[in-house]
């Protein structure tokens, strides 16, 4: 282990470390803490310039209720879920199939096709923007939840396929061969042997994609126009325009937008990090 485990050093060093870490964390998260503090301040504090100090009163509930009652926040949140969850299902589902094909079968174009997915995954969004937007408009998917789901689903399929393919490739190939000798049909191998084994990958991927899509802002701008289908990220921006100078409400709304991915991260931490590093590093 590097650096040298701290518990091997003297008591003073250990104590010092135990003290420094929380302080460093505090500084690191200062922006978050600040907006949290702001989000529980009453409006009066903001106006009187009490941005940093102790809130004069904890207005947590009041502020968060205000966000919901005075804006479309609830709808934005709902939209975000409506966009994110189907996207996760579509992209992960397709990627399982595609990744299986690319990982298990030896065919000539497997590698080029795989690279196509990988490359597509790194493409700057902007190069897709005009055609995708135009296509959505033409097909009536513009400014709909489905339109966003379909696009995100396709785009994330690239990353998911990269991820699943590498994961499946790392499975012992013997398992597949063993099943083939036993006369198990290809799709049954996929269903009964591979799928159960890639469950951790599916979990990791799902959390990751959830976060990616939840946090999307660009496509929300490109593919929607109205309030009715905006996700929370774009919504928060709109709220920012609406709650001018009401920083306590903007903060509350921002935190709300951040909450689901953060919660997701906390609940599925292991998977999340596995996903990030596995997907990227492998």
């Amino acid at each position, binding site marked *: 282990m590097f650096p040298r485990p701290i518990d091997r050093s003297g008591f003073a060093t250990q104590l010092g470390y135990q003290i420094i870490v929380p302080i460093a964390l505090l500084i690191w998260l200062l922006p978050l803490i600040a907006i949290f503090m702001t989000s529980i301040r009453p409006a009066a504090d903001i106006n009187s310039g009490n941005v940093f100090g102790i809130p004069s009163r904890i207005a947590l509930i009041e502020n968060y209720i205000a966000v919901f009652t005075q804006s479309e926040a609830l709808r934005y949140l709902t939209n975000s879920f409506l966009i994110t969850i189907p996207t996760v299902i579509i992209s992960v589902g397709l990627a399982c199939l595609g990744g299986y094909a690319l990982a298990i079968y030896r065919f000539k174009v497997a590698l080029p096709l795989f690279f196509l997915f990988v490359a597509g995954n790194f493409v700057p969004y902007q190069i897709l923007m005009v055609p995708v937007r135009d296509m959505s408009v*033409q097909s*009536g998917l*513009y400014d709909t939840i489905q339109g966003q789901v379909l696009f995100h689903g396709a785009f994330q399929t690239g990353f998911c396929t990269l991820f699943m393919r590498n994961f499946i490739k790392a499975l012992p190939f013997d398992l597949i061969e063993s099943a083939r000798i036993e006369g198990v049909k290809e799709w049954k191998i996929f269903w009964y042997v591979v799928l159960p084994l890639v469950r951790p990958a599916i979990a990791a991927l799902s959390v990751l994609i959830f976060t990616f899509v939840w946090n999307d802002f660009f496509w929300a701008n490109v593919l929607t*126009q*109205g*309030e009715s289908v905006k996700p929370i990220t774009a919504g928060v921006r*709109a709220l920012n325009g609406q709650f*001018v*100078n009401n920083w306590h409400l903007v903060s509350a709304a921002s935190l709300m937008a951040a909450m689901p991915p953060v919660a997701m991260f906390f609940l599925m931490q292991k998977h999340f990090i596995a996903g990030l590093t596995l997907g990227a590093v492998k």
Partner: protein
Amino acid sequence: GDLVINFDDLNPGPKKGFDDAVAQFQAENPDINVIVNNNDREAHKTAIRNFLTADAPDVTSWYPGNRMAPFVDAGLFEPVTDLWAEQGFNEDLAAIKPTMSRNGEIWGVPYSYYQWGVYYRKDLFDLLKIEEPKTWDELLSACAVMKENNVTPFTIGTKFLWTAAGVFDYINLRTNGYDVHNGLTAGEIKYTDPRIVKTFENWAQLIEECGFIDNHASMSWQDAIAPFANGDAAMYVMGNFSVDGYKNAGLTEDQIDFFQFPEITPGLPRAEEAPADAFFIPTNAKNKEDARKFLAFVARPDVQSKWNATIGQLPINSKATVGDDKFIQQGFETVSTAAGLAQFYDRDAPAAMAKAGMEGFQEFMLDTSKMMAILERLDGVQEEVYK
């Protein structure tokens, strides 16, 4: 049948005005089923480009001037020249007719406009014994008094650029007049033209001798109300829609007042900024017959009177009556006596030009010494855009 109307304002006042009007229209035409899609203004700007082709409503709100040009050129709006003739709009709406026209046809029917000018803290002026300035020099000396008393003369928030364009438009209108404004936005006059340079020099003088609040580039127009409301700044060059904002910030009608932007070049006919809102019929509309009915309806004097009273703006129909709000009154006075009505820099100039121009204005406000460099750059853009 169904009449689909796309409208573009979700703010409570305008929404109510529109809803009321629709309700009245519906009442008058029980056979027509009005379906309203009301959208946020910015969203509407994006949406219209698509829905005109893909999913056209029967009526949509939009803006005259250069803003309607691309749609007109692409044949996406239905000309309503005949409707104007039928309904006598040519007389009743005469002031707005030029901006509603393009390529020899008239393309829509306006329902409202509003004035621009200088809103100020009357209580501050009173305290400092300053009169509403009528001329440039009066303005400058008023500023001097304010500055002595630690009051910043002007507030503004230029984060979203267009507010600076309002200031520019006024100084330009007062320095050079209506025709130069039109010439410039039509790409006929270069930005390095001595007349425009003069405008900028005057602006520089205003910045130098009057001054705007600090950090305006990081503020929206709403943000900029705060120092105004607090009494740290005394004046605000703005459109009439801002009155609501002042009131929300806790100011009463007694504390604020309005004056016309002071004269700069003496004797120049006075032109004003007065952006209009209008309704158009898309070419792909399904129910054009009822759409025309609606357009005729919104131009009616009684409708416009009531509607504008609700939204605190000015009716366009000369037969309409004006609300008794003090700002409306003053605005009506200002606009109706103006020698020319400008839409707004970003509505009169094509989009690409407007964007570049407004960025230039903002940059200029932050550093007046870059004036010539900015103007030369704008010339370059102009050449490109109007090619």
